[in-house]
């Protein structure tokens, strides 16, 4: 039995300290999934907290044969899908301000240079902006596939879908994203052209 399984077993016996260790271990993947699904850090924080509360309350239902993070992310994905279906969320760029005016930033993992960082930041912004146009379940499938390297089988288990449905959803979502990517580039080119013509030099 590894450390994680020990914590899970202890938490199932009512040990809150053990559950806190699980929270500390999986807070980032759960928060990231919620953030990518909901698009706002405040909503992601709420959703991640709610995910852990639900996991705590339903820990007795957890099957030890299944990987714990998969079970946890499945709860988070279902919660976010429900929230997205209940109401429409306005999406913001990667750097937004919270109620206190503090800027939220995605932590810099491997910034090689300021230029590279700027490009990565732009790409992240574009990805986040495109994700919001996807269907909630397609979005969850894409996040699990590309942020967590989940196999189609794991995604199917997490989202209660068949493997063929996951494959078809992933294909559809990827094509949709590619279409949006082209649209964004067209808009960008049109904007640059407009600015070029509006320049005082002409």
């Amino acid at each position, binding site marked *: 039995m590894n450390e994680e399984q020990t914590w899970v077993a202890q*938490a*199932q*016996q*009512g040990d*809150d300290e053990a559950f*806190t260790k699980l*929270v*500390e271990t999986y*807070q*980032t*993947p759960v*928060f*990231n999934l919620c*953030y*990518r699904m909901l698009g706002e*850090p405040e909503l*992601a*924080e709420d959703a*991640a*907290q709610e995910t*852990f*509360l639900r996991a*705590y*309350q*339903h*820990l*007795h239902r*957890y099957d030890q044969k299944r990987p714990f993070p998969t079970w946890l992310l499945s709860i988070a994905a279902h919660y976010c899908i429900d929230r997205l279906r209940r109401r429409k969320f306005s999406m913001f760029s990667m750097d937004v301000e919270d109620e206190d005016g503090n800027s*939220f930033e*995605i*932590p810099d*993992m491997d910034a090689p240079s300021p230029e590279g960082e700027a490009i*990565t930041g732009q*790409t*992240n912004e*574009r*990805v986040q902006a*495109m994700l919001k146009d996807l269907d909630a379940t397609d979005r969850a499938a*894409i996040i699990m596939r*590309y*942020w967590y390297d989940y196999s189609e089988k794991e995604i199917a288990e997490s989202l209660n879908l068949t493997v063929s449905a996951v494959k078809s959803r*992933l*294909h559809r979502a*990827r*094509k949709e*994203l*590619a*279409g949006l*990517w*082209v649209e964004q*580039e067209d808009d960008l080119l049109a904007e640059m052209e407009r600015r070029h013509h509006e320049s005082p030099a002409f």
Partner: protein
Amino acid sequence: MNHQPFETWLLDDKVLTPTEKRELNSHLRDCRTCSALAETGLALRSARVASPAPGFALRFQHKLAAQKLAEQRRRLWGLIVLILSGVGLVGWALAPVLISIASSPVEWLISVTGLFLFVFTSLQAFGEIVTVVLRMLPDFLPPYMWMVILSGLAGMGLLWAVSIWRLARRPQGVPA
């Protein structure tokens, strides 16, 4: 323009041979659709992981504690309401009896004794009827019917015991 098999390769994240890579690169130079597909694939793979603000676990502990407290309060209030309702109902049911006892205790004692005598004689008569029926039944019912009846009773008993056990068992991981 024919996008196959390049589109499928990109969508399935296929591991390509050097020849396939060359073919794909050549196609991507001319095809904007597949090029966008490849670019979005790269963008998705290079996207960062967002982390929560520091103190997430501590905030969770506070939230959990608050939820447990709210749950305890809810249960306490539920218990109080249940007890008060029970006391009220018992009081309402006993009120006429208490009034009659207070007004004429001797008459009440006689009626209670009569009631006890009635219940006792009724039970005795019922017992006698059951004894007679039990003595007569073996002649009417064949042995296999007895087996069926006893199996049914045993099954129902088991079902009852399992239901009680499942209801009484507190799930693990659920706050007490």
